């Protein structure tokens, strides 16, 4: 049965009526009309749906909307502050990373979280943070360049 649920997304408060078991992804896409997080697998295996909750990367396809509580949700679009993209977005743009770009939420949001914790990561630390994310167009070379660039920005 539908339940009234409050969500804080990209600094704005929203209230939706939703099945409490519905994954957060559908609240963001369908109820709030946001287009950033994508459905890739629905199984938390790829990262295309990744958002930050209180700064931690979360696969929104597998997180029940009712389990978020007061957590502050940030989407990739919400990284843009006062019209200025986040340095990770700027680095990915400068390196022209995406081909289809459908997977980018995972790489960007996970990199944002990595650089918060480890501002100057080694290649090994970057790989450790990003392992498991999928990019079917196989832009891995560009992704590594962009993450290194963001870390030195």
């Amino acid at each position, binding site marked *: 049965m539908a339940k009234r649920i409050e969500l804080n997304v990209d600094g704005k408060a929203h209230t939706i009526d939703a099945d409490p078991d519905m994954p957060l992804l559908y609240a963001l896409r369908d109820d709030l009309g946001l287009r950033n997080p994508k459905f*890739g697998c629905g199984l938390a295996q790829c990262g295309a749906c990744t958002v930050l909750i209180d700064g931690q990367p979360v696969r929104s396809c597998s997180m029940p909307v009712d389990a978020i509580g007061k957590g502050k949700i940030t989407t*990739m679009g919400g990284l843009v502050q006062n019209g200025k993209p986040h340095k990770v*977005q700027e680095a990915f743009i400068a390196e022209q990373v995406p081909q289809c770009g459908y997977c980018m939420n995972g790489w960007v949001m996970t990199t944002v979280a990595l650089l918060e914790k480890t501002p100057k990561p080694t290649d090994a630390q970057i790989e450790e943070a990003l392992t*498991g994310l999928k990019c079917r167009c196989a832009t891995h*070379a560009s992704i590594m360049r962009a993450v290194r660039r963001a870390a030195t920005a």
Partner: protein
Amino acid sequence: MNTHLNRRHFLATGGALTISVLMPGEIARAAVAGLDKRPPLDPKKLASYISIRADGSAIAYFGKMDMGQGTDTGVAQMVAEELDLPAEKVIILAGDSGTSLNQGGASGSTGVSHGGATLRNAAAEARYVMLEIASKQLNVPMEDLVTANGVISSKTDASKKMTYAEVVGGKWFDTEVEWNGKIGNDLSMKTRAKLKDPKDYKVYGTSAPRRDVEYKMLGTDDYVVDIKVPGMLHARTIMPPRAGAVPVKVDEASIKDIPGAKVVFEKALLGVVAPKEWDAIKAANQLKVTWSDVPAPFPDQKDLFTHIRNAKVLKAGGSPKNVEPAKVEEAFKGADKVIEATYEWPFQSHASMGPACAVVDYQPNGITTLWTGSQKPHFAGDGVAKILGLKPEQVRGIWVAGPGSYGRNDAGDAAVYAALFSKATGKPVRYQGMRHEGSGWDPKSPASIHTIRAGIKDGKVVAWHFHSKAFDRLNVSSNESDPSDNLGAQAVGFQAKPGLTYGTPEESYAFPVKHQTWEVIPPFLEVMNPLRSSHLRDPLGPEIHFANEGFIDEVAFALGQDPVAFRLATATEQRDKDVLKAAADKAGWKPHTAATKTKKGDVVTGMGIAYAQRNGTRVAIVAEVDVNVKTGKVHARKFTVAHDCGVVINPRLLTQGIEGNICQGLSRALHEEVNFSKDNVTSVDWLTYPILDITERPHEIDVVLINRQNLPPSGAGEGSMRPVVAAVGNAIFDATGVRLRRGPFTAERLKAGMA
């Protein structure tokens, strides 16, 4: 309507014209161009290819699309070059049957070589027309006029000048052109103008930036999954647990607790729709279905290659250069020794990043719109028209960036499903598959066996026979204009029309007798087949050349020769020798006549080379691998790629496209194999169909671009995918002495080989 069309193109020009509302038909075309009226699309009219906007910038109407390799940027550069405009002053409006002629969609790496070449001619003609008009108005002979940066001026009197905007800005060209009468990739038109001399190129060879990166990174524009139409329903399909089974009983009451959820059940087509996406997904999971009892369609997977070997042959063919079969056998009889090897390659999946999505708004009395991530939106629109019983001109196909595209994936199925569900419900429908459909039910690249024989006499190859036996390259056509290729259409009774074709290696090796043949076998199921086969990026290229180039190495070593030296001596075209030499030199190739098996601790290292042609493009790749002898795990540490695709238009985007192909090719070499039970495909997600992980990335990809300034571009979308598997296989042999003749090169397989 709340839809978006390639808004990025307009943003790329500084936002002078942004379109966020778009309606089908004439109004939309006018709105897109910022003009009151656009003449109907007609290949005989220059206006169908190009227009000059009121500010003097140009729009080229591209009947293909870009899947993120920068094709549209390259085409903009080609148009800009002929118009003497900077690249950023050329907008490419791509992949919309309402604004562009059908140039075949993305197909066979022809975006630049065919699609771009046609628009380049259109640009040259547009410049010619503008010179004609300016000549009259300025009273200066055409030959005394020059163009630069959108300004036409007299060579002798600089005060006599007009901008493009003043000549035709904001108006449609009313010039007739001569076209070749071919719709699709080959569509071309003639220009009266002489194309620019390569020595005068200014825009070619520069690294103009891509146009789609910002919106993809900032989330500021729609993908096809983001299209929303008022009143739209979400749809999902329910697929049989055993392939070939059809629904016989559906318990609609089993989803009655889900708000607004409804069943669509027509013949074997079974879906659910709901106003909310999550409800459609829940309904699809919850719906109780009784399926027909059918025999298991597949053999045991371990018998796949035995099945292919023993299967009846539906069609055979070969290279047009083949000699009489009797002469081939005669040549082998004259040999001192015959070497033979068989290579095997599994089914592979597109496994696009997300399952395919399409939105269809069925309007039987107006214009029906299809929003699709398909590579071929014009053809997909034609297919939707046929399944809906409409005329082609009643359907507008609009490409919107989708979740990845590497050939004939599940996008065609999504378009037909959305169309059928929209018609059945009378509402606009957004359909997206689930992961198990994206991986499990997409058309696969066909599993194959390749047997190669070489006859040796006096230390030389005197006879060569390359033979493939495989599933159909086009059991599902790559062109989406026939709905019968799609699962949804097959479910409502359309019969598949298999293409029955295959291919042969492309290289320039010369042997006294050289023969290349193929045989195609029947699919496991005629329709609704999760192992139906079609095009996956560089169709057949990786597997055919895995066999061909692996065997070239085997023959070189059998003759006591170095793999690079043997190729250089055997390839006959100079450009092929050039890429081979460039890759080997840059990689620091050390000649050897046997596996070097360099060992350090638990790791053996090796270097392998492979090369191939692809429709005029030539690529040689040296792979360097580390193999852990305890685990069998391969790390392809470095690739050196020499690439010749004629003239280089955008070196940076070309290099990045090559890097993508290397990594995707490596993924296919190391991991990718569609697994199946006797009932169905069991590779249904990323755990059961793993792809390359960031931890497995090559640490270095060194790209050598050979720029043939005077040769036309021959395509770069897929050529560098072609030799990757072979180069990795040859490097693994060099490291371990183990010749893997079956892919992918998994740790288990290599460990078993080394045991």
